[in-house]
């Protein structure tokens, strides 16, 4: 390494002089040497914009500038903006332009520059100006609105009664969010993994001598060092599954390109990466299993030889005679296929862990990017052998996750184990390449279905054959979620007969994990196929849905799989969307534009049903909350959640404040610390509002019972007469008589200095809390280039009582954009040898501001039969959009006889569909139904 150089610059107005290695990027200099951690790194290839800073008056990407290049420069970071960015910061806060906050400092920097260049930007200007700042959470809606509002406060939609601004924002806007990469205790060592570049094969040589000899390298671990010391690495729900064991590092075989082979510990991350390059590895490649379809039958090539088959799970529900007859003899029988490509969660913050083990106390402390701190604690304890009582997991801010971080990954657990072995503090921050090739993939599903209909287009029955690619091994409970797709396939429709076959297979690819609606395929496949059915029977897809969707008077409705559907509004949301889109008018315009200008417009509709807050899946079916009254009368809520942008610190405070009738500002939420919070489910599976919210309610009820009794004593009235009222406990009959929460807290603390008024609340969810939504959109397809432009996007949704309308809309908008990405752009790809081709955010194309449509919302609030009347809604947006956008494009294509049955609908696929259609024949007129 070349010697260090002196650099002088001004950072946030202050002169700075430092010695740096010429290799140090400006981002690392700011983060590591100056401890200015607002500036984030999410790709290090110039794509994400999270590292945006201002240098000599222009924004630059600090990952692409060397610290030595900033010689003499004036550099500003989000920490230095203070008042300067105030209007934009305030607007981001007011418009909910922030979720996880990982992108926020970059947005502040670039947004500020944009407003300086264009004081009155149009919406298009804003989108163009922010196209280099990726946000995976918000769908950009709140961000674009915030910039517009900052430019012209009069244009701001203004805060709505039901949507208080988020409490998380203040620290995130000031650059004081604490993500795992911001945690750097003194003496931290850095970890890098050596990973297989081969999909399947036998390791014949692994020589670590040169890496160990590199100056600054502390340790190099291989399978021989760590595997014998590791406990069970599987997540809690899979502990008893009969599975080949999962071990920290590949020992003799590799099963996917990206699988970890060795782990290097060194003084800094550049050194660790250099040492990884010095490890010599030879793998004798074997032909990989890549195609899930072929893998089922293949007994020669096996991902795990000892299993005898690549089939991982199979579940068949019997086709009863009535259904068989319908599928054979119904007046109309239609077969349809739907294929989803491999996708990646790609949260802006990758995975990461900082783990320290103190041999003297026997304690292991881990900061983790996780949705589920308590599960992480249990898993770390199992793997490292440190008793659970001596493991503490913390996670303050999580930069997005979408299911990826719900079960603690093999890599994080391996690092924790290595920390235990070394007795040191180890830090591993996943690179974007690792994130896209080795963290988890999702959505690799194929569905083939048969629908039987009568002459009027009423569905008599259906059968789904569902094949899921589980990768080298399943992460978390996804393997169990698979059959769920078949269970809920008939969704919000009156389909009396249904059966399914579910199979999942192992392949030599990155493991399959949870991604925003692990059972989204039920909605995606069904809604895509219904449009195919509509085309086949010559009926408008809206009309087909109208004839089959369940109306309000048909509820509760028992699905053929015996699940009971109730408190949902599919028919209403369908009509809302049809009305908002002005459906008949769109159809007329579509025909006119084709006839007169040859343009291809398409309209798509999809009804989604989200089985949220599932109460049948331990341990995520229940939660616990603890409430404590502090001496100053404020309330602290201790929750097991691990929120990554869902605004849990805000919404749960709202719930508690409402139950206790105290000011929102009097409630503080503490989460993300297993020492402070009771055991619980974490944040995931659209369960927070219903399950955690109900636990908060239960705790509040318990607290009130205690408080009423204390207050009754104080006031000298019976407890039944006491009620909480605007921040105090008051006598119902004498409005003047009241006692404050602070006084009650003091009364209790009189029993002993540590005594507090506190209560624990528990809640176990009912089997299913359904929420529903209907999505509608209009697209135009460029007939010659195959590109797709979304003209309009409407969502009518029913998530029960909304706690915070803007949090709801933010969740939906973020989900919709991920769905649009999945429908049009995003695809994880491998070459024929199973080597990953999409290794960065340049190749794995997540949507920018320019692909994000403005979304129009309609809210219907039908309470669920749970304590707050809420329903989960974190995941449905993605499923709805995947199907809705697909349907719109397929609808456009059908006018010229072109067909598609798989995503992503990229230009080449669309043009191929045109070519296969051959003739540019106009859309076939509605044919009279005929048996096929």
């Amino acid at each position, binding site marked *: 390494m*070349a010697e260090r150089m002196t650099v002088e610059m001004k950072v946030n107005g202050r002169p700075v002089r430092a010695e740096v290695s*010429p290799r140090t990027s400006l981002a690392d200099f700011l983060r590591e040497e100056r401890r200015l951690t607002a500036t984030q790194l999410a790709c*290090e290839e*110039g794509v994400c914009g999270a590292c945006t800073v201002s240098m000599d008056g222009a924004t*630059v990407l600090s990952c692409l500038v*060397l610290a030595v*290049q900033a010689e003499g420069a004036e550099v500003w970071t989000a920490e230095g903006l203070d008042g300067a960015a105030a209007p934009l910061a305030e607007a981001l806060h007011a418009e909910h332009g922030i979720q996880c906050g990982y992108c926020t400092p970059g947005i502040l920097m670039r947004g500020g520059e944009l407003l300086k260049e264009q004081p009155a930007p149009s919406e298009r200007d804003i989108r163009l100006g922010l196209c280099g700042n990726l946000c995976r959470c918000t769908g950009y809606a709140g961000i674009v609105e915030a910039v517009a509002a900052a430019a012209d406060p009069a244009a701001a939609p203004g805060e709505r009664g039901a949507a208080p601004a988020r409490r998380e924002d203040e620290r995130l806007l000031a650059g004081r969010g604490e993500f795992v990469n911001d945690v750097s205790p003194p003496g931290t060592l850095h970890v890098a993994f050596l990973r297989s570049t081969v999909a399947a094969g036998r390791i014949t040589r692994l020589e670590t001598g040169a890496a160990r000899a590199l100056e600054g390298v502390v340790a190099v671990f291989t399978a021989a060092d760590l595997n014998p010391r590791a406990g069970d690495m599987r997540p809690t729900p899979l502990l008893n599954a009969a599975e080949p064991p999962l071990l920290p590092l590949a020992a003799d075989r590799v099963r996917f390109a990206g699988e970890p082979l060795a782990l290097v510990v060194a003084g800094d991350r550049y050194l660790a990466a250099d040492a990884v390059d010095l490890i010599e590895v030879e793998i004798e490649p074997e032909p990989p299993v890549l195609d899930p379809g072929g893998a089922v039958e293949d007994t020669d090539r096996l991902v795990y030889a000892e299993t005898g088959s690549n089939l991982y799970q199979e579940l068949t529900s019997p086709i009863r005679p009535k259904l068989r007859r319908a599928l054979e003899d119904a007046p109309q029988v239609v077969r349809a296929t739907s294929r989803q490509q491999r996708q990646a969660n790609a949260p802006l913050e990758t995975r990461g862990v900082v783990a320290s083990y103190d041999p003297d106390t026997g304690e292991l402390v881990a900061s983790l990017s996780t949705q589920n701190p308590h599960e992480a604690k249990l898993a770390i304890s199992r793997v490292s052998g440190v008793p659970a009582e001596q493991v503490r997991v913390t996670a303050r801010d999580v930069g997005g996750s979408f299911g990826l971080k719900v079960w603690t990954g093999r890599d994080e657990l391996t690092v924790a184990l290595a920390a235990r072995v070394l007795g040191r503090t180890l830090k591993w921050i996943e690179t974007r390449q690792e994130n896209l090739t080795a963290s988890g993939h999702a959505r690799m599903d194929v569905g083939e279905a048969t629908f039987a209909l009568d002459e009027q287009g009423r569905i008599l029955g259906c059968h789904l054959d569902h094949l899921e690619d589980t990768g080298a091994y399943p992460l978390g409970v996804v393997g169990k979620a698979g059959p769920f797709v078949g269970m809920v396939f008939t969704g919000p429709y009156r389909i009396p007969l249904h059966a399914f076959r579910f199979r999942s297979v192992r392949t030599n690819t990155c493991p399959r994990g949870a991604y925003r609606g692990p059972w989204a395929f039920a909605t995606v496949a069904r809604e895509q196929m219904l449009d195919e059915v509509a085309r086949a029977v010559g009926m408008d897809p809206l009309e087909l849905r109208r004839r089959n969707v369940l109306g309000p008077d048909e509820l509760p409705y028992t699905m053929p799989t015996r699940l009971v559907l109730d408190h949902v509004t599919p028919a209403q949301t369908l009509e809302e969307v049809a009305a908002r889109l002005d459906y008949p008018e769109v159809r007329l315009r579509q025909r006119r534009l084709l006839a007169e200008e040859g343009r291809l417009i398409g309209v798509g509709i999809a009804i989604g049903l989200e089985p949220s807050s599932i109460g049948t899946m331990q341990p995520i079916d229940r939660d616990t909350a603890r409430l404590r009254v502090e001496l100053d009368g404020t309330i602290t809520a201790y929750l097991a959640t691990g929120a990554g942008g869902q605004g849990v610190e805000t919404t749960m405070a709202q719930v508690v404040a409402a139950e206790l009738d105290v000011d929102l500002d009097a409630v503080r939420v503490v989460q993300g610390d297993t020492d402070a919070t009771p055991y619980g489910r974490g944040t995931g599976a659209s369960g927070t509002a219903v399950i955690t919210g109900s636990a908060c309610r239960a705790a509040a009820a318990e607290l009130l019972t205690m408080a009423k009794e204390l207050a009754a004593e104080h006031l000298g009235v019976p407890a039944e007469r006491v009620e909480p009222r605007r921040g105090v406990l008051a006598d119902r009959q004498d409005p003047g008589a009241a006692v404050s929460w602070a006084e009650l807290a003091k009364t209790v603390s009189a029993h002993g200095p540590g005594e507090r008024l506190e209560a624990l609340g528990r809640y176990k969810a009912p089997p299913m809390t359904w929420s529903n939504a209907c999505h509608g959109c209009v697209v135009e397809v460029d007939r010659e280039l195959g590109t797709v432009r979304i003209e309009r996007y409407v969502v009518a949704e029913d998530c029960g009582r909304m706690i915070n309308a803007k949090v709801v809309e933010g969740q939906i908008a973020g989900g919709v954009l991920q769905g649009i990405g999945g429908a049009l752009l995003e695809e994880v790809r491998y070459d024929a040898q199973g080597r990953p081709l999409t290794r960065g955010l340049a190749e794995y194309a997540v949507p*920018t501001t*320019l692909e994000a449509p403005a979304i129009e919302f309609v809210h219907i609030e039908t309470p669920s039969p749970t304590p707050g009347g809420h329903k989960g809604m974190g995941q449905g947006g993605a499923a709805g959009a995947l199907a809705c956008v697909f349907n719109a494009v397929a609808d456009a294509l059908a006018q010229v006889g072109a067909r598609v049955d798989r995503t992503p609908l990229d230009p080449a696929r669309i043009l191929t569909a045109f070519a296969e259609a051959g003739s540019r024949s106009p859309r076939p007129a509605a044919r009279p139904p005929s048996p096929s």
Partner: protein
Amino acid sequence: MDFLRPATWEDALAMKAARPDATPIQGGTDVMVEINLDKGRPTALLDLNPVAELSRWSWTAGPAPMLRVGAGVTYTRLIAELGGWLPGLAQASRTVGSPQIRNRGTLVGNLGAASPAGDGHPPLLASGALVEAESVRGTRLIPIGEFYMGVKRNALEGDELIRAVHVPPAAGPQCFAKVGTRNAMVIAVCSFAVALDLRARRAGTGIGSAAPTPRRAHAAEEFLAGELDWDGAGPVDPALARRFGELVAEAAAPIDDVRGRADYRRHALAVMARRALGWAWAEREV
């Protein structure tokens, strides 16, 4: 990795002569990505940012003055300051990366990288630019058509640096078109530029991302020079525009890669060329 920081152009040339292995770095939007992704760390970096004169542009002398765009002129400044004279190049520059990339990235960096997908190349080819290369041995002007030697290879010698690019001001409407996998921050799947010279009644073309190097579509240019009704009013004859598109596509030699398939590239080029001609011609009328 050594870091060399010349203060003047002469210093830079001397350092490059002494260290031909040194990689010049301007905006760093290509160089730094390679370093970060460990696609080979250079033994030395030669930072040209301190050489202040490189960030200036001027007019060349002579009967047909050209714009001399210094190696340090960023895309952002090129768009703002030179867009009036170089509309095709400015249009292409607007599609490069994102505002942050354009604040730092340069046209000369695009030439240094010589990626077949670089967006600067088609408009430079279409307008017949010259690359001003210099070393301690002297200066030479390389016609743009002779500059690209292969995938990510250009005509520079080991001791040479690019000081500027000379670009003729537009002599008629120009147009740039690009398709990518998304609308921003995307390397072109393929791109095309056309520049009409209304006085000389010629058209220049440039194709990007559809051959090992950026290239002109000579046959398409000759076809336009001969067949286009240069005095005609109204839109271009659709048949002529289609033929032009076909000739452009025929000039390409695309491959399959992670961004796109060869057949899609060829097809899209024909469409883009036809449309770009139509748009450029329409601009002439207003």
